[in-house]
């Protein structure tokens, strides 16, 4: 009953903010409203009993995505100068699609209906067997890392390839002659150094943020957390330092070669665990073969590949942020 009331509240707010994002002309406002949109979405996930997803949505949706959109906006226009092109055709198509979907949802089971089909076939097996097979309190991490480890390996490589794509697109910077010389521009614009208080507090909090990221990383088995969220949190800490101290100092803290090496190392760790478990007689990514006692092997396997995922995601986010901020000098 309680969740119905709260989700009503939050979902209507969600729709209002989405329509507002649609209507603004100023891209800067749209990006900030999409930050609010992600926070409401994360609160919704929390009410729908999805703690891990709420943490991921908050860290990535409200944190990293806002920073990326803003640094992209800094390089392009801030105004959506075009009047909407012929609003009738898009309006018609989207409302037709919406109407069809709404009609289709009438047969869908009521929210939280225990005998919905979703809860019938596959899900109970995982909920019962996880304590026996893997004995990890957080079932989501168990399924993510062990039952469906091969899939997560695929996702890690998708993130890896996206990072390579961004680096190849925004790679080496050859500042044009007539652009303001780098030192001058850097000194003036790219940091909040002249704000004394934000600089002090920002730099003071960076170690705690990274520590909290590591806590979320290794706490992934017992509570909401895991490699993806931890990587984004650690990257957020480094990005905060780069925001406060400015691009070059940020690149001194985490140099380019280190963050791209981190990306490769994470993916390599993940695959290495698979190969080792194969060499020890199990199948690829079957962690039971990692040590004499299968449950202990599962624990070790999950811990190592979560560390690999954390490394990759942190490296990718830092590399992408540096690629965008370094591009600003052109």
């Amino acid at each position, binding site marked *: 009953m*309680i969740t119905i009331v*709260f989700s009503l*509240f*939050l979902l209507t*707010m969600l729709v*209002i*903010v989405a329509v*507002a994002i649609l209507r603004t002309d*100023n891209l*800067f*406002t749209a990006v*900030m*409203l999409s*930050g*609010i949109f992600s*926070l*409401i979405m*994360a*609160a919704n996930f*929390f*009410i729908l*009993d999805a*703690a891990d997803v*709420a*943490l991921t949505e*908050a*860290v990535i949706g*409200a*944190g990293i995505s*806002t*920073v990326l959109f*803003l*640094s992209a906006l*800094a390089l392009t226009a*801030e105004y959506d100068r075009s009047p909407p092109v012929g609003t009738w055709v898009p309006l018609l198509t989207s409302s037709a699609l919406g109407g069809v979907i709404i009609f289709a949802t009438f047969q869908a089971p009521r929210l939280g209906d225990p005998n919905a089909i979703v809860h019938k076939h596959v899900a109970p097996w995982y909920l019962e067997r996880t304590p026996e097979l893997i004995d990890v309190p957080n079932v989501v991490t168990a399924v993510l890392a062990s039952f469906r480890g091969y899939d997560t390996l695929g996702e890690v490589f998708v993130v890896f390839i996206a990072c390579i794509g961004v680096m190849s697109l925004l790679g080496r910077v050859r500042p044009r002659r*007539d*652009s*303001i010389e780098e030192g001058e*521009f850097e000194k*003036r*614009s*790219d*940091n*909040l150094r002249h704000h004394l208080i*934000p600089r002090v507090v920002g730099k003071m*909090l960076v170690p705690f*943020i990274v520590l*909290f990221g590591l806590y*979320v990383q290794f706490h992934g088995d017992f*509570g*909401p*957390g895991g490699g993806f*969220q931890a990587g984004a*949190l650690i990257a*957020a800490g480094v*990005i*905060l330092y780069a*925001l*406060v101290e400015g691009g070059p100092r940020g690149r001194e803290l985490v140099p380019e070669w280190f963050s791209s090496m981190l990306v490769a190392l994470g993916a390599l760790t993940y695959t290495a665990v698979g190969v080792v478990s194969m060499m020890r007689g199990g199948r690829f990514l079957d962690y039971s073969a990692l040590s004499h006692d299968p449950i202990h092997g599962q624990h070790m396997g999950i811990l190592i590949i979560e560390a690999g995922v954390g490394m990759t995601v942190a490296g990718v986010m830092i590399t992408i942020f540096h690629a965008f901020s370094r591009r*600003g000098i052109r």
Partner: protein
Amino acid sequence: MEWVYFGTCIAILITMVLAVVRGLMGPTIFDRVLAVNMFGTKTVLFIAVMSFLSGRPDFLDLALAYALINFIGVFAVLLFFQSRGVRREAEAEREAGK
């Protein structure tokens, strides 16, 4: 105790709605940044009280992550706002130079 949590959650939700409305109506850009900042803090409180309401108080590190992300988001906005001033300044100069 149940209804106390429920009442506090309702108060926080109403404030969230007010913050969103200020974010949408806010005449200047800074009102929107203020709305985002205020909204972030309210989500932190909402998650904290909600985790007590649903009887799972071990979800509080979610609230800590929200507070942290909100802080970084506001800084990113302010830095963007300042560097945009420099960029317009540079472009105006380049036109003047040409």
